[in-house]
């Protein structure tokens, strides 16, 4: 269906359309600015993320190897049983934070598990390794989530800008042109009619 279907070709509507398109164009400019900022933020964040991940990955592999060794040394059932003797658990609070209107989770560490002396040495070594990087894992997860949300928002903003630039604004322009053409046509018709009426009146007077 044409975008001009149902359009009232009136001066009032034209003015309203012009006001709207002005508003949309300004909004698009803002969205473009936001898109550029998000892209810049994403590029920087991705570099940071890559660096942090690489750093953590080596330590994480060591920790995972220690956990694997503990499981292979004791068996899964014994590991489960021993880990039960850790009384306190990890308590986290997830709070919202925002950057350029993008909300992302911020993790506040409440209580960390207290590893007491009763674990087998293999499990104790594994838990020490994991414990050392627990903060880093949480911060990295938080940062990854932030980057993901920024990337999502960038995608959304980009789609909005594209839709505005390629669909909405051209449609509005088309409607404005249609109304202007219609109004021109009408005023021309009006002019011709006036001239004809004027001509008829003049000939009647003569």
């Amino acid at each position: 269906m044409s975008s001009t279907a149902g359009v009232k070709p009136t001066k009032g509507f034209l003015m309203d359309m012009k006001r709207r398109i002005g508003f949309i164009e300004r909004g698009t400019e803002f969205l473009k600015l936001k898109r550029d900022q998000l892209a810049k933020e994403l590029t920087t964040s991705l570099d940071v993320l890559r660096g942090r991940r690489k750093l953590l990955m080596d330590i994480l592999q060591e920790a995972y190897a220690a956990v694997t060794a503990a499981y292979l040394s004791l068996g899964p059932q014994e590991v489960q049983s021993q880990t039960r003797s850790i009384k306190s658990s990890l308590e986290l609070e997830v709070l919202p934070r925002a950057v350029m209107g993008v909300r992302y989770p911020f993790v506040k560490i409440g209580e960390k598990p207290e590893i007491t002396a009763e674990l087998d040495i293999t499990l104790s070594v594994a838990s020490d390794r994991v414990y050392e990087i627990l903060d880093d894992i949480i911060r990295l997860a938080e940062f990854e989530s932030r980057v993901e949300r920024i990337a999502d928002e960038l995608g959304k903003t980009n789609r909005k800008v594209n839709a505005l630039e390629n669909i909405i604004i051209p449609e509005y322009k088309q409607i404005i042109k249609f109304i202007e053409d219609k109004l021109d046509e009408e005023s021309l018709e009006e002019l011709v009619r006036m001239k004809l009426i004027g001509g008829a009146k003049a000939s009647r007077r003569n």
Partner: protein
Amino acid sequence: MVLRTHARIADLLTREQMQTLADTRDVDDFLTKLEDTPYGSVTLDDESRPDIAMERVFYRKFIERIEKIVELTPKKIGEFLMGYYQMRFEVVNLKRILRGKFSDASEDEIRLSLIPISAYQVASYEDLVKADSLESVVEMLRGTPYAKVSEQMPLYEEHDALWPLELMLNYLNASAILEAVKKLPTRDRRIVRKLVELETDIENVLIAIKQRGNKGKTLNVEELFPATYGISVPHLNDIIEAENIRPVIQGLGTPYAEILGPIYEGDVALIRTYLRLAKYDHATASRSADEYGFNVIMAYLVYSEIEKDNLVGLAWGRAQGLTPRELLKYVVIPRG
């Protein structure tokens, strides 16, 4: 009897079969390949945790093997073997019940964590599982060979930790086994004594190594090591205190220095693999020295237990998608 045991040794998984199981793609493939071994087709009672279900299967199989061997052996040896393994497993079960009670785990969780054996020295595991607190469990152990666990309650309360109770259970187990060994003919005692002492000594060293991280805390080493054999309390104290552990470990001599070798790389789990290997080698050497006696039976059970531990590890590794290389590092591959 000995000939039948030799035949059973031949039925244990070979190096190739163990390698094939390690090379499997996933749990299903592992179970398919397991069908081609004497284990045959196994049914898992919990599909959501195949690793734990398989662990139960391998424990049951190992217990079946012990029972079959006991049927073949003379009464005294049979009683010793049943006692040796039943008490070991019972001690594991008691620790798991205590841990469950300590952490307020549900009765079902505790029940599922137990090794599938019938109660040996206690009246029933079910009663212990249903006890309303850890203190009640310890109270229920009065009148059993584990009564001394209650003596550790002040330490447990002081530290709010289970290790005093667990150490006492280890000590009672080792003492009971060494006491039971005395009932065996003199020539048969050596292999059991050596196995028990080796295991206790290495576990003591592992506890001592762990205490190195707790410097500054006042420790009573006598409490930490209620039973010592080849590695004395002063040696264990040296391990805790020494700046450089290498000369202390090397000073322990063979086989301890070799078994504890991985500590220099920080791989404590590999120490247990080396311990299994040392037990395997000791059983093999004892079996070679006397091919027609108790040593053959004991060797078969040592091999079977190592096979059970290997299969538990491989099954877990398959469920986790680990590579054969990661797995085989901690597996004692049968020699030959």
